[in-house]
């Protein structure tokens, strides 16, 4: 109360103060401010501590280890500066691994996305068995990657189920050494990745489709738009924020592919299916070159972060600024 009284006294002291807007009631403002601060500390504090401890700190530690030649044993003392980073960037195997990540990302865009949209559009219709089909499409995504890898290892064995099936339907001539041929193993891996992750895309896009008011489709129908025109001109533009989110998640996932590849091929044969993460694991844990592996990890982080940052800045920003409402207008 004393603070309130003090403010009122100050306001009456000068004529200018009489025409000026009422003086801020500092005492009343400060209290909610403090409360807000406490709320922030209580609600954000633990998350921030965890984020700093389990995300920021490890990144800093990895960047630090990357500056040393360190086997994982003994003191971290052999400082080599940016030598490890240079070696990683100059290593043809690392570049090849990065290229594999990019190929997986591009194939995801070109193949997985259209398939996901098509299935989502199909499943968005009212049809008998729709729930079952949705569950069936989503089921592989629920299965752990390790299980998926073992399952497909068995299916793709020489003379295994896939080979027998192809022979049974007259495609025996197309049978390949799916995981042993360096020229096709990456594409085999992509098929398995698609099998596992397409359900996620479909569910995400279905959720997006169900957020589009049915009246729009009905109105377009009344105006004489064909089904294709409705999809092309109305549904897809309204679905684009969801598509952009899918692209973001898919690209980050493509940069981080590991489990399936590691179990199915260990990145081989001859690095033909290696990715940046298998490269990092190989040098870090398998080869016990923790300094070198850490440098690879930091480079992987920078690439992922740069992509995420630029994509947020140029692609996702419009969604947060209300792209949906603009599109409807």
């Amino acid at each position, binding site marked *: 109360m004393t603070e309130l009284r003090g403010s009122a006294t100050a306001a009456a002291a000068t004529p200018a103060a009489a025409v000026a807007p009422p003086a801020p009631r500092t005492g009343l403002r400060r209290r909610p401010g403090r409360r807000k601060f406490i709320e922030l500390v209580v609600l954000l504090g633990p998350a921030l501590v965890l984020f700093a401890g389990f995300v920021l700190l490890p990144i800093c530690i990895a960047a630090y280890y990357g500056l040393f030649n360190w086997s*994982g044993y003994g003191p971290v003392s052999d400082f080599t500066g940016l030598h490890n980073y240079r070696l990683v960037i100059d290593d043809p195997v690392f570049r090849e691994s990065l290229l594999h990540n990019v190929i997986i990302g591009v194939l995801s865009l070109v193949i997985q996305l259209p398939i996901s949209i098509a299935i989502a559009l199909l499943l968005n219709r009212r049809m008998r068995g729709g729930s079952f089909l949705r569950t069936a499409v989503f089921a592989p995504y629920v299965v752990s990657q390790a299980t998926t890898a073992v399952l497909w290892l068995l299916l793709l064995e020489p003379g295994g189920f896939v080979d027998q099936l192809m022979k049974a339907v007259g495609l025996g001539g197309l049978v390949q050494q799916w*995981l*042993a041929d360096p020229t096709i193993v990456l594409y085999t891996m992509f098929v398995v990745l698609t099998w596992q992750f397409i359900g996620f895309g479909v569910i995400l896009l279905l959720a997006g489709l169900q957020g589009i008011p049915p009246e729009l489709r009905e109105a377009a129908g009344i105006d004489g738009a064909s089904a294709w025109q409705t999809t092309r001109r109305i549904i897809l533009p309204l679905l684009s924020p969801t598509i952009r989110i899918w692209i973001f998640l898919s690209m980050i996932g493509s940069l981080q592919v590991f489990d399936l590849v590691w179990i199915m091929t*260990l990145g*081989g*044969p001859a690095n033909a299916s290696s990715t940046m993460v298998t490269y990092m694991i190989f040098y870090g*844990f398998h*080869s016990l*070159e923790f300094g070198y592996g850490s440098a690879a990890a930091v480079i992987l982080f920078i690439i992922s972060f740069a992509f995420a940052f630029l994509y947020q800045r140029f692609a996702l920003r419009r969604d947060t600024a209300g792209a949906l409402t603009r599109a409807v207008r």
Partner: protein
Amino acid sequence: MRRTRKCVAVAAAAAAALTLAACGSSGSSSGGNTGNSKITLTWWSNANANPLLGVFQSLAKSYHASHPKVSFTYVPIQNEQYDTKIQVALQGNNPPDIFFQRGGGFMATQVKSGKLANLKPLDSKWIGELGSLAAAWQVNGGQYGVPYDQHTVGFWYRKDVFARAGITSPPTTMPQLETDITKLDAAKVAPIAVGSKDQWPDAFYWDYFAVRECSIATLKTAVKAVSANYPCFLKAGSDLTAFMATNPFQPAFLNTPAQVGAGSSAGLVADGKAAMELQGDWDPSVMEALAPNKKFLSDIGWFPFPAVPGAPGNSQVLLGGGDGNSCSASAPEPACADFLAYLESASAQKLLVSTANVGLPANPSASSALTLPAEQQILQAGQHTPYIQEYFDLAYPTNVGTALDAAVADLFANKGTPQSIVTAIDQAAARQ
């Protein structure tokens, strides 16, 4: 057990720490001398499947029976997970008291942690009795581990499949082996199975060609200098390239695992789908675990890697290694070292050889427990050899060894050259 990955789905077993013997005994290891207090030794091993798992548990129980104050917590860890786990443990403050060891450069890399106990200052007369085998497990004059078995790499073959292909006796020279490959091809059976997915089985071939092409002195120098920049190593790569041109391996060998599943190289030989495999002496036990019908064991034979005509190296030199244990520097002594000595006793060694099929015993007095004719054959080969070269991927420091494996795997996939193997080794050595 060096590379016995026979435990296909036993990761679950690895999760369980089995407390052995005197579960209720109090106290735990805290380092230094033990005095009269009760202690518990934590023992990490990659033996997570029977028969070796059971034998180790039984040996721990026996030791406890004669040393009631010492009990064990045995922690079985799946082989592929072991290297990572022990690396983390040795970086931490609480490493296991006893842990599985492979020796060579693998152990030398671990010694850098300062967490391995040097057994030499302790009562180590028993180590001396193991002779040159244990001497190979020294780093800078310190004895940081001791092997409980010794391994030899050679060809395991199916006598019945050889007979079906019209081969009357195993080959002794490379040209003979190549002729046999042609005969086996004609008999519609994969001549040789190899687990290239794991890379290290590929390296056995390069290793053996190097052993045939290099003098013993060069082999020793190369390992000591951590280099392969010698003409004989290049020649080994050329020999391997020429051998690969005979298409000796099964279809899709580049993604075949060595020891996991019926489709592995060991499984293919056990099933009669391949005629032979270049592997360590642990191979029959791996095959046994993979094959539903154990009848094949009577058809299994062994022959050493053939001589390479004109190669200057000694054709009786063998490729091998061993499995053993180390004590951590914080382990209670002399209990830990005493238990390792117990594992080298004739009775323990006989149990390991006869029941766990670990290969050849580290203690020669247990050789009488070898029963399979092939094992006796390996024993004799070992007695006649002037030198056993440790697998290069373990003899070199870990990062150099993995670089070697990867470079040979590239050659197998037609992406490498003899020079690229030498270069990979030297580049990795430079990163040391």
